[in-house]
């Protein structure tokens, strides 16, 4: 048990360092860029502010102080759990993220679900279907991967909303609109899962044990479900964990195309206006998600494949 606890502590420590580094790194990157949202807004020629007025407002936000002082202050705030106030909207960053997070979570979860279903369908099809069809199906993941997500999104909106009238394109959070947004993202994610699944099923199907099972008269379906699926699903867990990060990234484009307000659109707005407090919070959130998901994947691994723990720690393997 001590080995496992040490492992968990080490991983936990690494996670905290990763999150802090993400926070500092974002700050550094944004500070290197010229400009800040406050001065940009003030410098809009429509506003007609004098230089004195601009200097006074900039100093209110503390943006005229040395970068290091700003970083320390921001870090101190972060460590006490305060995410600060957006420089663009003047609202609390925690509120802004809390408002958009549910929409992105719904999109991410449903697109992952769609992706898993799609990729298993494709992978099973490749195994079951007669030769010409299954060969054609093998190229589907590459096709999914190479068609840009925004194109799929725009086509889905055009056909199912504007032509068929199945949903209002502007009712962005309705169930049908959400389904099509999730499908846009899911098609792209499914490609990578399907690719891994197909390769692994091929590999397992060529193993001796599969041949033995077949020779003893086991049907294709039973063979697949009983023997091939479990070992083939193992790498899928790894890919899925990585995909959660990709889904958050891909959400930017999908949210833009479908006009959804979520983490993606918040990032887009904040990057465009260099809204540092919001960006720091979102990057940190992403780092937390990545760390947690990968930790979970590591924990699920031994459950799916006992060899993982046995090889690494033969003494505690039996206990686990």
């Amino acid at each position: 048990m001590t080995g496992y606890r040490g492992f968990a502590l080490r991983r936990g420590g690494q996670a905290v360092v990763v999150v802090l580094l993400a926070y500092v790194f974002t700050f550094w990157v944004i500070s290197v860029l010229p400009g800040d949202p406050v001065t940009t807004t003030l410098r809009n020629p429509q506003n007609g502010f004098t230089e004195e007025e601009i200097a006074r407002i900039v100093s209110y936000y503390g943006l005229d102080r040395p970068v290091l002082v700003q970083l320390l202050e921001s870090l101190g705030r972060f460590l006490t759990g305060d995410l600060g106030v957006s420089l663009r909207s003047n609202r609390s960053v925690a509120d802004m993220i809390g408002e958009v997070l549910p929409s992105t979570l719904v999109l991410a979860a449903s697109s992952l679900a769609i992706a898993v279903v799609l990729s298993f369908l494709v992978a099973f099809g490749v195994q079951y279907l007669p030769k010409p069809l299954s060969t054609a199906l093998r190229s589907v993941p590459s096709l999914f991967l190479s068609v840009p997500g925004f194109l799929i999104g725009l086509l889905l909106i055009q056909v199912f909303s504007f032509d068929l009238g199945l949903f209002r394109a502007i009712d962005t959070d309705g169930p049908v609109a959400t389904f099509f947004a999730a499908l846009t993202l899911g098609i792209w994610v499914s490609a990578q899962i399907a690719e891994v699944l197909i390769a692994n099923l091929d590999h397992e199907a060529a193993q001796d044990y599969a041949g033995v099972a077949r020779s003893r008269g086991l049907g294709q379906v039973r063979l697949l479900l009983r023997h091939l699926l479990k070992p083939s699903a193992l790498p899928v867990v790894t890919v899925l964990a990585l995909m959660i990060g990709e889904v958050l990234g891909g959400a930017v484009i999908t949210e833009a195309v479908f006009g959804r307000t979520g983490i993606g659109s918040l990032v887009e707005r904040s990057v465009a206006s260099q809204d540092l407090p919001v960006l720091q919070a979102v990057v940190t959130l992403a780092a937390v998600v990545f760390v947690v998901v990968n930790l979970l994947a590591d924990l699920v691994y031994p459950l799916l494949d006992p060899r993982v723990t046995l090889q690494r720690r033969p003494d505690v393997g039996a206990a686990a």
Partner: protein
Amino acid sequence: MKRALKAAIGILATVLVATACGGGAAQSAASGTPRDGGDLTFLIDSLGDTWIPNNSAISSFQGHIWGHVTDKLVYVDENGEASPWIAESWEQNPEATEFTLHLRQGVTFSDGTPVDAAAVVANLDMWSRGDATRGINPIGLFPKTYRSSQAVDPATVTVSFSSPTLGFIPTLGYHGSILISPKSLALPAEQQADLSNDIGSGPYVVESWKDDDSVVLRKRPDYDWAPAALSHQGPARIDSITYKLVGEQQVRTSSVQSNQADVAYNPSPKELETFKAQGFQVAAPRYLGFVNGFAINTKVAPFDDVKVRQALQHGIDRDQILSTVYTPDWLAAQSFIQSNVPGATDHSTTFAHDAAKAAALLDEAGWAPGPDGVRTKNGTPLALTLYPNPYLATSKAVDELIAQQLRGLGFQVDIQAYDVVTYGQRVKVGGETVPAYEITRSFIDAGTVGGVLTDANKGENWFGLGQTDAKLTDLATSIAGASDPTARDAQLDELQGYVLDQGYFVPITQIVQRLYLQSPRVHDVTYNGIAYANYYTAWIGDPA
């Protein structure tokens, strides 16, 4: 990526136009009798940044919402005509330094607070000074000569200025000068940033809002203080207005075309004619302000030479720009201010397109054509860098065309395009590397013109002249500080002639910055002096 996206959208647009034509286009029904009820959906490309009324008011997006949620003291129509609103009448002393406003009685904010003299004084003070301790900005364009205001009685306010300020009354109709409940004004910035806390006295109230997503307005049944200049009085007719943010231009316009929404903001100018042919309404109201054009920095060689500046004026073919980049909804410039500004006069002959004249002027100035087509003088090429203004969507296309036209004359033209953030940092009016600053700016009173051209009274010094040009300084200063409107109009005419004659400003076209694509079922929309659509007067008829 962006290019690919645009290409894809272009393809989709073609598909879409084909389907829409196939479906048979609806024709706009003849205006019937106005009726109550209905809900309007307005698709907008952004909802701007903060909702703190003072910090946000200049932004072009939030103006749509403020225009329905709040009232102003003075109404300014699309011709710049000021008329009574919450201020029923006003007087001023002959020097235009003291003003008295008489307020309409019985007006209330939607939180029940009366819109009385005390509330107006609180607003005037907030517009002019902001509150530095709370991070609340002043309103940039509010006259900097403001001294103080007093509530004489609940319906009378006196306002005093340190020098003549003719622009005060029109400024009260500008989009920054919105009346907000004193209770909201007293809130800390973080709470004012929540739109639900910003209480106005307008015909609509905020029912709900979600950052960067939507704002839903509901009609206020007891509203009864609309400007007399409007065609409608009493409560608004349309029950609710939903402003929904849709970033993709194509999704906005297609939603209106497929009857999923009523208005799409900022459709592509290129498609306006197609929409009209399909029976949709298109509005391209002009704002009051400067035309789109270049303020020339006379400190940057060779633009210190009046002949080179004039060559620039005559070298630009404005008709080609209008027909290539724009549609017939855009007008040619007649001066350096829009022709609907009171006091604007027609000086279009001064800077008319004449390539031969431009070439002759360059010859006279000593710029001889070189072997590669670029003119040179003492070995220096005739170079010009243009910086498209990111606040005007068409600016880059216009500049590319101008570059092409000027290259034909022997200019060596570079175009340097920046995004809004970088532009704000690097491109400044009068900057050393900026020979021609592209202007796009609205104002409500021509007095603004006098304030920006030179550096007198902390002016913006558009032409880099400081106060060295005595005639310009005289004219500009007396316009900025004028107390008699008639005398000011004469000076304004002289100023326009002089600035254009000297080639200080090179006009391109008049500006339409706000475009609306509208369903034929929406009738009687009003546009104000800053080209915002006002749905207070509008009503929704039968679906087409």
